[in-house]
């Protein structure tokens, strides 16, 4: 389902994460499983067959699952708290889903550099952990997340060609051409938990890097569309 490089990285992640993070049970850890479930669900929500109307029941069930995970993560406090090591080696599938949702969420809100993922892992420890990622961050994160869920539902409800194509083009290219997109992103590996990435970036620098990442993504889309 994911690119080969991705899988290998995940395996390394799991091993290192288990060794590195104290108190986490033996692989696969619950949080990791939960996170991958969350990402899978988000991809499923977006990956509708756009020619035929998507199944509303299925979408509602997946969305409820995502909400459930989100609630649990909020209760756990893992919503915003992420150990730097684990953040640095975040599975790249998380990258995909946040990129997709980032983009659509951004378009929706019309912000230039709204919710954007963080840049290279090396920079992760520099990312401020306290107040910007604190209460405001999580609230924003939830708001951004909720907005993207709503966006999905609205899209399902009334298909405006613009939003649908845009959603579809993102997912289509990203999903099927992960290698191209991911290798194209120079040092663009975002860190941090998927959803809190929605919080407005504390630093201005991530935005420029991300813009270049998104530029790469657009480039990849263009190539695919032309072919």
């Amino acid at each position, binding site marked *: *389902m994911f690119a080969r490089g991705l899988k290998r990285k995940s395996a390394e992640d799991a091993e290192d994460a288990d060794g590195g993070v104290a108190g986490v049970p033996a692989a696969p850890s619950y949080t990791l*499983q*939960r996170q991958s*479930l969350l990402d*899978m669900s988000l991809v*499923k929500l977006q990956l509708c067959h756009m*020619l*035929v*109307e998507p*199944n*509303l*029941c*299925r979408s*509602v*069930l997946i*969305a*409820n*699952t995502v909400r*459930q*995970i989100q609630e649990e993560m909020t209760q756990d406090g893992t919503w915003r708290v992420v150990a730097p090591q684990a953040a640095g080696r975040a599975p790249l599938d998380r990258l995909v889903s946040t990129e997709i949702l980032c983009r659509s969420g951004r378009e929706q809100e019309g912000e230039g550099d709204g919710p954007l993922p963080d840049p290279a892992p090396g920079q992760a420890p520099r990312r401020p952990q306290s107040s910007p990622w604190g209460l405001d961050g999580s609230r924003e994160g939830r708001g951004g997340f*909720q907005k993207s*869920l*709503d966006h999905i*539902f*609205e899209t399902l*409800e*009334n*298909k405006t*060609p613009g939003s*649908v194509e845009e959603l579809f083009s993102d997912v289509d290219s990203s999903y099927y051409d992960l290698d191209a997109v991911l290798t194209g992103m120079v040092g663009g590996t975002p860190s941090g938990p998927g959803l809190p990435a929605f919080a407005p970036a504390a630093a201005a620098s991530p935005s420029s890097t991300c813009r270049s990442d998104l530029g790469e993504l657009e480039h990849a889309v263009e190539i695919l569309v032309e072919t």
Partner: protein
Amino acid sequence: MHQPPPASSCSSGSGCECARVGVRASALAPAAAPCPAPRRLPHPRRPEPPSRGTGTLLRAGLGPWCSPTGSPAPLSCETGCGEGSWILVCRLLVPTQVSLLSMEEDIDTRKINNSFLRDHSYATEADIISTVEFNHTGELLATGDKGGRVVIFQREQESKNQVHRRGEYNVYSTFQSHEPEFDYLKSLEIEEKINKIRWLPQQNAAYFLLSTNDKTVKLWKVSERDKRPEGYNLKDEEGRLRDPATITTLRVPVLRPMDLMVEATPRRVFANAHTYHINSISVNSDYETYMSADDLRINLWNFEITNQSFNIVDIKPANMEELTEVITAAEFHPHHCNTFVYSSSKGTIRLCDMRASALCDRHTKFFEEPEDPSNRSFFSEIISSISDVKFSHSGRYIMTRDYLTVKVWDLNMENRPIETYQVHDYLRSKLCSLYENDCIFDKFECVWNGSDSVIMTGSYNNFFRMFDRNTKRDVTLEASRENSKPRAILKPRKVCVGGKRRKDEISVDSLDFSKKILHTAWHPSENIIAVAATNNLYIFQDKVN
């Protein structure tokens, strides 16, 4: 107070809805061509119309068709479902295959149905069966497929010479019920897949059924024609108009016998009432109304009126962002025409009484089982989503199917089901993978037998399960080409959960999740079952019968 739908009678010809519908129907879809290989019946059928009225329909229908004792033979311990006494009666192939062969090779249709043909090269995705339904007498069996076609099979009649042929079903009629459409407003295709077929009880010589795709319900009339008029004055034998100058004498047209022809015509088209996908239709016991349910709404129709329907349930929230629950199935009570139930994606069932109010958003009864905290996971809600709900024939119980279990509820007890049967509990540890490959969203149906003593539902690997409610025995059987020869007894199957796998068992990891049995049907009075496995329809019969 709920205003009843306008009366069905119409006063004049041209202004009347029925006449308009009649014209419109023919403009919408040409009358389906008669079945290319019509059967030669031993003699024409004119079955007696069963008497109307609550509770008597089934009993009257049981008369000529069931075992001599006059009541459906229950599955006893000896013949019971746990003993593997089910035999394959026939395996029916996709209609394209049948008609192609019969046209080219001029083979008796029965022979085709009874033999196992080697190649499936004609089978396409459009041939996947999406619904199966016996009519009220069990004489006819209708299937709908993904390509929008309806195929009706008719039971072979008893004859002294060929006793062993009894119980077999042969193609009776084939027609294209729905065509793919395009919704220009939303830029979306509307699939032609038949979601449900429901028969109307027979009231005259013709058969009526409702078939529906995601958006439109159609009422089809299936009738036989074995005579045709000859000797028209104004037309010649080929139907061409004669020159009036050449007509010198007058004659009276005479009805002459002809080869039996089965025709299907669309009599009503009920369209444009559903924004979301229709998942259920149910004929009311008053035989004048029926309901259609989509994800968020349920509408009540009168058979005679196609441009209007009453909305009786609406669970759409004002804000779609607040949507957390959808309707998954709905059915009318078999005897009380004011009562119906609908199930939800959260594992709840609501029983509503239409006498209480026009819009039945407030339920009369609410059935929900408290959650088992030990089994809780992220998938708990998804696997609790009810995929099918069916009233028992008695009307006293409802049966619901969720992903892993079948539950029987007593209408008088709302807080928990009276019986729970595990269909494939070995999948509980595999839910994450099943979520990944979307199998967790499969909608299995469930059925009662005629006496409400046995329930049946499908599973993966072409397995289907039967549960005897009285003996508490259950059996797993397989519907597949490799393992069944005609008239051979079906061997019970077993899934090995862990540890040592015995010789005949199959391990959970070897199960084929692409081979799922979602649709099954049980004859209303006899132990004959129809099982749809992809594009094959299997008919099994209890051996003793």
